[in-house]
């Protein structure tokens, strides 16, 4: 195995593009090293992107949004108070992944590229309307996060393409987001269902809403009908019922020891309601 430490993303992509065998990018390594050890993947070329300065940076964008480099760890995100204040739901999704030790290494972009439908970091990104920058042999492009997952363990990235980081839009006024997941214990588990909601309000009335479900379909799924169900409402009981119904209707889960189809479908609706209420309270300036 060749170990590479490029200093620019262009070089990283070029190494991957000309590699003949199996290639892996290494950021936090919390998925890649487990795959290495279990011989699931035996890369011929391992490309460590942590020597690329931009990969390790959290910066503000010109319009008041955020840029999170592909190798920024979960711990670095939770330690950034301004980022947590803007996007608490997005950050709490990332923060739910693994232990303190895993948080010291695991990255948001890694969570996205691992392609798990149960990825806790991803629903919040999609709800927030984030994009990622992809660099590859054909140059660079900006892609909506929801277009990256392509099925369990799969992404839409082509050979030689690498994600350089995530762009989070400006929070703007009267917005709030939240992420909830169901697990049978209190910590250190994989989501049976996850749900992120991102709202904007005018007074008490919802003017923008994005609802995203995890672990109930082959990919993390944006559910436009669920967002529409609460537009123009103040999250009164009937609106929340419609939201829960739309969320449950969008589920195509697997049946396994972690949760039955029926259970996951029901819980998706329950979490959507609860996450919407938290996002609403946060949009009103609460710290729920």
């Amino acid at each position: 195995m060749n170990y590479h430490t490029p200093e620019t993303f262009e070089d990283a992509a070029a190494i991957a593009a000309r590699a003949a065998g199996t290639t892996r990018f290494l950021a936090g390594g919390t998925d890649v090293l487990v795959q290495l050890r279990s011989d699931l993947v035996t890369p011929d070329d391992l490309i460590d992107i942590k020597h690329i300065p931009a990969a390790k940076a959290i910066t503000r964008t010109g319009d008041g949004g955020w840029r999170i480099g592909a190798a920024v760890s979960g711990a670095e995100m939770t330690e950034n108070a301004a980022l947590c204040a803007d996007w608490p739901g997005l950050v709490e999704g990332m923060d739910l992944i693994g232990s303190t030790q895993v948080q010291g290494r695991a990255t948001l972009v890694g969570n996205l590229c691992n392609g798990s439908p149960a990825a806790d970091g991803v629903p919040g990104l999609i709800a927030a309307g984030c994009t990622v920058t992809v660099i590859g042999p054909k140059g660079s492009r900006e892609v909506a996060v929801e277009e990256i997952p392509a099925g369990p363990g799969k992404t839409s990235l082509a050979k030689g393409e690498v994600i350089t980081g995530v762009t989070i839009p400006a929070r703007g006024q009267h917005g709030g987001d939240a992420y909830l997941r169901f697990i049978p214990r209190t910590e250190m588990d994989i989501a049976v269902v996850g749900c992120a909601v991102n709202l904007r309000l005018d007074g008490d009335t919802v003017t923008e809403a994005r609802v995203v479900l995890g672990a109930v379909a082959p990919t993390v799924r944006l559910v436009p009908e669920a967002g529409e169900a609460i537009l123009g409402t103040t999250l009164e009981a009937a609106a929340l019922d419609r939201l829960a119904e739309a969320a449950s209707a969008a589920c195509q889960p697997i049946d396994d020891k972690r949760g039955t189809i029926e259970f996951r479908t029901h819980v998706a609706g329950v979490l959507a309601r609860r996450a919407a209420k938290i996002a609403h309270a946060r949009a009103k300036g609460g710290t729920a």
Partner: protein
Amino acid sequence: MTKRIHVSTELNGDAVDFLCDPRETLLDCLRDHLGAMGAKEGCGTGDCGACSVTLDGRLVCSCLVLGVEAEGKQIGTVEGMADGESLHPLQRKFIEHAALQCGICTPGILVAAKNLLERNPDPSETEVRYWLAGNLCRCTGYDKIVRAVMDAATEMREAS
């Protein structure tokens, strides 16, 4: 056979170097090339925390880090906790509270607890439990560990 790579790093304040295959984990490099046997392998997949070390002050599982990634970094392990013959307060309190039985989890828990107290000298019990949630212990039932950490924190606050 892949070409071995020369890695220069710092272990508990001492400059060290070693040669390793790029596939070797930092845990294997510590144990096999640097003779630092404190970090243990429980699972090798990031689940148990027995291999916990710090890398530039950040708590990580050394089984989820490659040895080559340690180039130019500072590694902290349990071997760096005691000052000569005098134990770190956490080590003393673990003995006082009988917070270990077989001891496999102990080096990892000590490193993790030390890292917590450096960041938060006055953690609540809940904070201690969440911080150590990635350190599994199959012997003690955790209670004595948590009490030892709380007690050490109190002593360290009073001493400072």
